């Protein structure tokens, strides 16, 4: 039996799957959880205390839209009382100035505001909602509030030509950190991949842009970027390794090692209503499943990089290779890498969906009842 190697550092609290936006790359699962089963205030409060006792430092309040919870202020107070650093990941849509003040007074440390674009029309196309003007209002309000701010831009084939505008928006705000995150291809992003996957040239230009921006803004704004791993030589150490650093709790209370873990067949996930976080972290089958190296196949098993990337992403192995224990197919050493190369070749064909075309047929995520 493998033991939990370390304590988790962050708790990702998916407070609800309800959301006013319908983004085509949403990280929620395709099967969204309904409001009726959501954990109540007391259960979340216990989860925060158990997380802190387990060694967790940060709680990421996310969703869906976490502000859709009527008890959001109580949840912030509860996490604060447990001693956690609280990061609210929000679209900003349900926010007004009074709510923002109340959140800061309740103990919110950090707010991450998500943007779909620097332009109204692209934002509306991606989220299938009118939301951009409200986000700009929230940015203004944040300037006079004592809370740390990150702007998050999800980037892809359709908005990579707007990076300079996005950065200018960040520079005009009070943000000290900006994330440019290329879409990851799971769930809704996987379903819409063909329209989202950038060309090789777009990707190279974006990396060049980020490096120059990092240099110019050093000490002012911290710029972080995530590249699409389909173009990588080696896979990412997904979630810092399965069951090594992070624990995600779904709106209904299931504890997952990552956002997408439910796609893996045969895994049973424990619920925080039945088990303590410590029991789940240290002993549950689902968190043990891909810990350590016993589960690895070749070429991972004997690879020098197995302690660096832990074989990559298990969900991606399932989605692309059909086997959650396989080497992540994005790895250049993976026997299934040809599948990824074929996808990239299609994305780089002159006939592939162009960034300038009018709206493709998007699959939008719905708002669960």
């Amino acid at each position, binding site marked *: 039996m493998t033991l939990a190697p370390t304590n988790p550092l962050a708790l990702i609290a998916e407070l609800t799957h309800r959301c006013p936006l319908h983004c085509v790359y949403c990280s929620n699962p395709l099967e969204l959880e309904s409001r009726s089963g959501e954990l109540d205030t007391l259960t979340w409060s216990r989860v925060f205390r158990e997380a802190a006792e387990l060694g967790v*430092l*940060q709680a*990421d309040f996310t969703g869906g839209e976490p502000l859709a919870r009527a008890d959001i202020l109580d949840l912030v107070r509860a996490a604060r009382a447990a001693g956690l650093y609280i*990061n609210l990941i929000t679209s900003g849509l349900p926010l007004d100035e009074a709510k923002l003040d109340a959140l800061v007074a309740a103990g919110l440390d*950090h707010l991450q505001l998500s943007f779909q674009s620097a332009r109204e029309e692209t934002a509306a196309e991606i989220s299938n909602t009118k939301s951009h003007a409200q986000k700009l209002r929230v940015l203004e309000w944040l300037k006079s509030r004592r809370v740390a701010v990150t702007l998050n831009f999800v980037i892809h084939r359709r908005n990579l030509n707007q990076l300079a505008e996005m950065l200018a928006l960040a520079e005009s705000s009070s943000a000290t950190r900006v994330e440019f995150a290329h879409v990851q291809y799971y769930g809704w992003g996987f379903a819409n991949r063909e329209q989202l996957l950038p060309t090789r040239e777009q990707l190279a230009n974006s990396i060049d842009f980020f490096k120059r921006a990092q240099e110019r803004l*050093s*000490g002012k704004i911290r710029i972080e970027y995530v590249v699409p791993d389909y173009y990588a030589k080696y896979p990412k150490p997904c979630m810092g390794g399965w069951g090594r650093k992070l624990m995600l709790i779904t709106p209904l209370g299931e504890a997952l090692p990552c956002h997408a873990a439910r796609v893996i067949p045969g895994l049973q996930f424990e619920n925080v209503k039945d088990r303590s976080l410590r029991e789940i972290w240290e002993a549950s089958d689902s968190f043990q499943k891909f810990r350590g190296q016993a589960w690895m196949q070749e070429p991972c098993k004997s690879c020098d990089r197995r302690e660096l990337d832990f074989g990559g992403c298990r969900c991606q192995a399932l989605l692309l290779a059909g086997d959650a224990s396989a080497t992540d197919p994005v790895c250049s050493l993976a026997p299934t890498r040809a599948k990824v190369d074929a996808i990239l070749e299609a994305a780089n064909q002159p006939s592939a969906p162009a960034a300038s075309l009018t709206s493709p047929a998007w699959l939008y995520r719905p708002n669960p009842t």
Partner: protein
Amino acid sequence: MPERALRLNGPSLEIVERCDGKHTVQQIITDLQQLYSKAEPKKVESDILDYLARLRDQRALDFDG
């Protein structure tokens, strides 16, 4: 810091504990020169200034006034 954590021990912990919006940089230097009285005071000062600059570059702290 969101999605990051600083592992602090010894002098780095002593410094960050004093980054509370009340201590001035000079007060932090004086405190640590007393705490680490066996070390060369000039070296303590330059180490602290380097460390604070690194934290600022990572946008982990701000200087007031």
